[in-house]
C-alpha cells in the first residue's frame, strides 16, 4: 500500500486521533492486511503511540497483521460506502426544501400522501439480512419483468427491511390487495407478474400454508405469525422502504419530534419517558428515564447521546432488523432524547459487517439533515443536534457501555475500571447517555401516544413490547414482537411453531453467553424482566434460543465459555482466568475426565467471577452455568459420575454417537 493512499485515508478523517479504528478498518478493507510499516505510519500521522496502534490492531479478529487472501476479509462495503457514496447511489427521491416549522412538516406530509395513490400496485420485497442470501436477483427480476410488460410507471417496487418471518422469506407482498408470497425465488417472478399483477390472480403454490390447519392464507396480516404479534416497532417494516424518508413520513414519521419540540419542554419529555417506565432493551432493563435524568443533571455543557447498535449477543438479530428496516424510527427517538437530555451530539455505534444497515443509516441521516430534522435549528425550533456513525469491528466486550465509549474515542475497547457511571462521565469524560436501538425506537411511540397508553401494555414492572429473535431448534426462525407478559409458551409454540422433526422441547435459553436456560417445565412463565431474572434467565438483549431434547447442556455451556475466552478484553483476573478454568473443567467433563468436586469448584469460581470481575461481561459470565446447575444438575452429574451424556451428544462419553 503506498504512502499517499494512507495519507488520503487519514485525511478523510481529518487526522483525528480518535479515528484510529476507522482508519485501520479502511486500510484493512483495501489492503486486506495491516503491514507493520503501515501501522508505524498511521501511528506517526495520527500522533497515537505505536504501542496503542498495535494494541488495537491485535485486539480485533477483523484485523490481520499477516497477508490474507482478499476473500477472507470480513469488512464489506463500509470502506467504500462513505456517506456521500451511499447518498449518490440511492438518491431515489427528490427532497424538497428544508422544513422550518411543525406546520411545514404537516404540509409536507400531506403533500406526500396526496401524491400517493393507495390503489397503485406496489410490490414489497424483503431485502432484509435474513433473506438477503436467498433473495439475490428477485428485485432485479421484478425490474426486468416490469420493463417487459411496460409497467414501470404503473407499478412500484419497494425493497423493504426484514418482515420478521425469516424462516419463510424472502417475502413478496403485493399491495393494495396485500397478497403475500413466501419463499419466493427469481424463477417465480415472471409468473407473479403475469398472473398476479396483470391478471389479478393469486398463485396458490406461493401462498403461505398454515402447518396446523393446512389452510392457505393470502393476506400477510392474517398469517398467524403476524396476527398474533403486537407490531408497534416492526409493523412498518413491510410497508416502508428504509431508504425513503417519505415512506417514513407517510406513516406519521417525525410527528413525535415535532410534538416534543413545540408542545413540550425537555423536562416534560423526560417526565413522560419516566412515567412510561421505559426500560433499556440492551440487556440490563435499566429505567431509561432515570438514566436520561442523570446525564441531563450531570455537570458540564457538552453531553452525548448514543445508540448501541453493536448487537453482539450470539443469535440476536432484532436490532439489525429494526435499524436496517426502519432507521428513521431510531433516529427520531435519539433526537427526542437529545432534546430532553440537552445534548447536541449523538453517535450511532453499529456493526461493520452489514452493508445494507450502514447504507440505510447514512442515508437516513443525510435525508433527515436535508429536511432540517437534524443539524442546525431543527424544524426551526432553535435546537441543534448532529449525529456521527461509528463502526465496531466485532469483539463482544465492545458492546459494554464504557468499552463502547473507549471505542468511539478511538481507543481499545476495554471497560473503564473507575467507579463512575458513563451517564456522568463517558466519552471524553463527558456525560454520555447510552441506550439500545430498540429502547430509542420506543421513544417516538411514547411521545405520540402518551405514557398512560404505554403503561397499559405489559406487566407491572415491564412495559411495552419486546423484540425477540427466535432461533435454534424452532420451526419459525425469525424476529417477533410481543407485549411483555406474553407466556413463553405462546412465543415458542405459537409464533415459533414449536420444535421441528417431532422432537421435544428441552429448554429455552435467553441472553446468549451472559443469560440463562429455563427448562421446558417453566414454559408458562411470562416474558418479564424481573420475573425471568428471578428464574436465573435474564432476557438479555432478546436472543431466544430454543433447545430440543438432543441438546447437551454441558456442551452448550462450553460453547458460551469458549465464546467469552475470545470475546472478552482479558484485562481482569477473575474473568480471564475464571472463564479459562471453567472452560477447562467443562471440557474435561465432556471428554470423560470429570471428577468429584468439579461441581463445587465450578460453583466457587462462578461466585468469585460474579463478584470480583471488573465489568458486567465477567460478572455475568457464569450466569448460564448457574442456570445449568439450578435446572440441569442431574445431567452434569451423569457426565461426571457415570461418564454418560443423557442427550447422547458428547462423543467421548457413553452413548455419544451423534
Amino acid at each position: 500500500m503506498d504512502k499517499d493512499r494512507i495519507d488520503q485515508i487519514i485525511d478523510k478523517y481529518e487526522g483525528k486521533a480518535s479515528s484510529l479504528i476507522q482508519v485501520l478498518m479502511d486500510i484493512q478493507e483495501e489492503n486486506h492486511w495491516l503491514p507493520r510499516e503501515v501501522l508505524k505510519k498511521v501511528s506517526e500521522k495520527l500522533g497515537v503511540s505505536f504501542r496503542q496502534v498495535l494494541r488495537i490492531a491485535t485486539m480485533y479478529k477483523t484485523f490481520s497483521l499477516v497477508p490474507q487472501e482478499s476473500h477472507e476479509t470480513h469488512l464489506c462495503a463500509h470502506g467504500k460506502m462513505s456517506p456521500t457514496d451511499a447518498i449518490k447511489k440511492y438518491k431515489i427521491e427528490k427532497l424538497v426544501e428544508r422544513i422550518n416549522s411543525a406546520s411545514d412538516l404537516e404540509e409536507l406530509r400531506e403533500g406526500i400522501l396526496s401524491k400517493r395513490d393507495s390503489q397503485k400496485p406496489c410490490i414489497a420485497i424483503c431485502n432484509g439480512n435474513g433473506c438477503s442470501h436467498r433473495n439475490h436477483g428477485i428485485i432485479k427480476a421484478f425490474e426486468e419483468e416490469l420493463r417487459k410488460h411496460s409497467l414501470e410507471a404503473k407499478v412500484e417496487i419497494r425493497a423493504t427491511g426484514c418482515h420478521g418471518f425469516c424462516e419463510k422469506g424472502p417475502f413478496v407482498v403485493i399491495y393494495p390487495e396485500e397478497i403475500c408470497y413466501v419463499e419466493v425465488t427469481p424463477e417465480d417472478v415472471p409468473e407473479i407478474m403475469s398472473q398476479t399483477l396483470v391478471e389479478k390472480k393469486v398463485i396458490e403454490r406461493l401462498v403461505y400454508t398454515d402447518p396446523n390447519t393446512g389452510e392457505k392464507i393470502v393476506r400477510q396480516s392474517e398469517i398467524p405469525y403476524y396476527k398474533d404479534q403486537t407490531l408497534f416497532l416492526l409493523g412498518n417494516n413491510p410497508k416502508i422502504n428504509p431508504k425513503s424518508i417519505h415512506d417514513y413520513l407517510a406513516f406519521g414519521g417525525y410527528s413525535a419530534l415535532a410534538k416534543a419540540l413545540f408542545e413540550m419542554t425537555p423536562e416534560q419529555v423526560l417526565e413522560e419517558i419516566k412515567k412510561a417506565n421505559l426500560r433499556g432493551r440492551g440487556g440490563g432493563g435499566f429505567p431509561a428515564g432515570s438514566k436520561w435524568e442523570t446525564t441531563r443533571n450531570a455537570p458540564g455543557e457538552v453531553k452525548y447521546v448514543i445508540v448501541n447498535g453493536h448487537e453482539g449477543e450470539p443469535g440476536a438479530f432484532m436490532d439489525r432488523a429494526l435499524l436496517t428496516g426502519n432507521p428513521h424510527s431510531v433516529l427520531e427517538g435519539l433526537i427526542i432524547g437529545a432534546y430532553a437530555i440537552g445534548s447536541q451530539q449523538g453517535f450511532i455505534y453499529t456493526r461493520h459487517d452489514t452493508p445494507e444497515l450502514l447504507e440505510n443509516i447514512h442515508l437516513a441521516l443525510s435525508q433527515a439533515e436535508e429536511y432540517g430534522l437534524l443539524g442546525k435549528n431543527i424544524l426551526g425550533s432553535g435546537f441543534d443536534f448532529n449525529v456521527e456513525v461509528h463502526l465496531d469491528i466485532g469483539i463482544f466486550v465492545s458492546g459494554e457501555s464504557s468499552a463502547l465509549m473507549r471505542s468511539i474515542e478511538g481507543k481499545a475497547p476495554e471497560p473503564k475500571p473507575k467507579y463512575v457511571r458513563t451517564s456522568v462521565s463517558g466519552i471524553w469524560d463527558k456525560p454520555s447517555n447510552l441506550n439500545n436501538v430498540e429502547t430509542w425506537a420506543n421513544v417516538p411511540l411514547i411521545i405520540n401516544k402518551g405514557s398512560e397508553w404505554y403503561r397499559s401494555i405489559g406487566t407491572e414492572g415491564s412495559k411495552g413490547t419486546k423484540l425477540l429473535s427466535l432461533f435454534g431448534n424452532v420451526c419459525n426462525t425469525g424476529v417477533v414482537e410481543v407485549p411483555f407478559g406474553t407466556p413463553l409458551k405462546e412465543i415458542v409454540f405459537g409464533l415459533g411453531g414449536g420444535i421441528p422433526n417431532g422432537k421435544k422441547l428441552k429448554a429455552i435459553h435467553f441472553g446468549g453467553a451472559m443469560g440463562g436456560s429455563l427448562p421446558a417445565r417453566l414454559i408458562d412463565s411470562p416474558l418479564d424482566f424481573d420475573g425471568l431474572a428471578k428464574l436465573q434467565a435474564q432476557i438479555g438483549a432478546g436472543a431466544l434460543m430454543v433447545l430440543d431434547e438432543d441438546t447437551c447442556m454441558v456442551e452448550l455451556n462450553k460453547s458460551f465459555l469458549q465464546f467469552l475466552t475470545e470475546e472478552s478484553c482479558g484485562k481482569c483476573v477473575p474473568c480471564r482466568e475464571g472463564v479459562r478454568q471453567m472452560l477447562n473443567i467443562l471440557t474435561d467433563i465432556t471428554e470423560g475426565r470429570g471428577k468429584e468436586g468439579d461441581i463445587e469448584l465450578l460453583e466457587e469460581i462462578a461466585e468469585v467471577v460474579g463478584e470480583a470481575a471488573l465489568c458486567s461481561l465477567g460478572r455475568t459470565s457464569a450466569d448460564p452455568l448457574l442456570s445449568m446447575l439450578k435446572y440441569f444438575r442431574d445431567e452434569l452429574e451423569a457426565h461426571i459420575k457415570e461418564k454418560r451424556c443423557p442427550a447422547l451428544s458428547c462423543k467421548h462419553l457413553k452413548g455419544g454417537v451423534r
Partner: protein
Amino acid sequence: MSNILVKIDGRELEAREGMTILEAAKEVGVAIPTLCHYEKLEAYGGCRLCTVEAEVRGRTKLVAACLYPVEKDLVVITRSEKVDKIRKMILELLLAHAPVARELQGLAQEYGADKDRFRKESSFCIHCGLCVRYCAEIKKKEAIGFVDRGTTREISFIPEIASQECVNCKECFPLCPTEALQAAFVLTQALSFPASSFESSE
C-alpha cells in the same frame, strides 16, 4: 463542604475528597493486598486482589479498593470470609501461571491458596500491567504493550522501540512480580536485536 467520615475495619478517619479506599486504609494502618497497584501509576483495577466489602447507605458491595473513591459514611471491611475466598481464588488462578513467583507464594500462605488447584499453564505473566504502564506513564517510551484479547492476551515488547530504549533502562524489571518480563525481554532480544550488536549495560 461536609467532612468525609470513613470507617475502615473499625478505625475511623476523616478522608479527603478523591482518595481511594486503599489510600485511606493506609493512613489508618490497614494493609490491603495488591498486585497491579503502584503509587506512581494510575490505578488499573486488573488483579482484583484488593477487593473489599464497602457499605454505603446500608448496601454492601464488593469493590476494588485501589479504585473506589471514599464517600461520606463509607464503612469498609477489608477481611471477611467473602473477601478471603475471593483473594484465595484469585491467587490460585494466578499460581497456575506463575507457581514460583515469590510475591504470590507469600500471599498464598496468608490466604491458604493451593498453588496446585488448577492445571499449570506456565506462562508466568499475571497481566498486572505494571511494566506496560511504567514504560508508558513514567518513561513515556511505550516499548512494551498488551496485544490480543481474552485468554490469549499477552505482553509484548515492541522490538523497534525496545532495541533503542530498553537495553540501558530496564527500570520496569524490578516491578514485575514474576519472571515473565525478564523472559519476554530475553526472547525479544534474541529474536530481534541480539545482544552482540548492542552495548549491553549488564
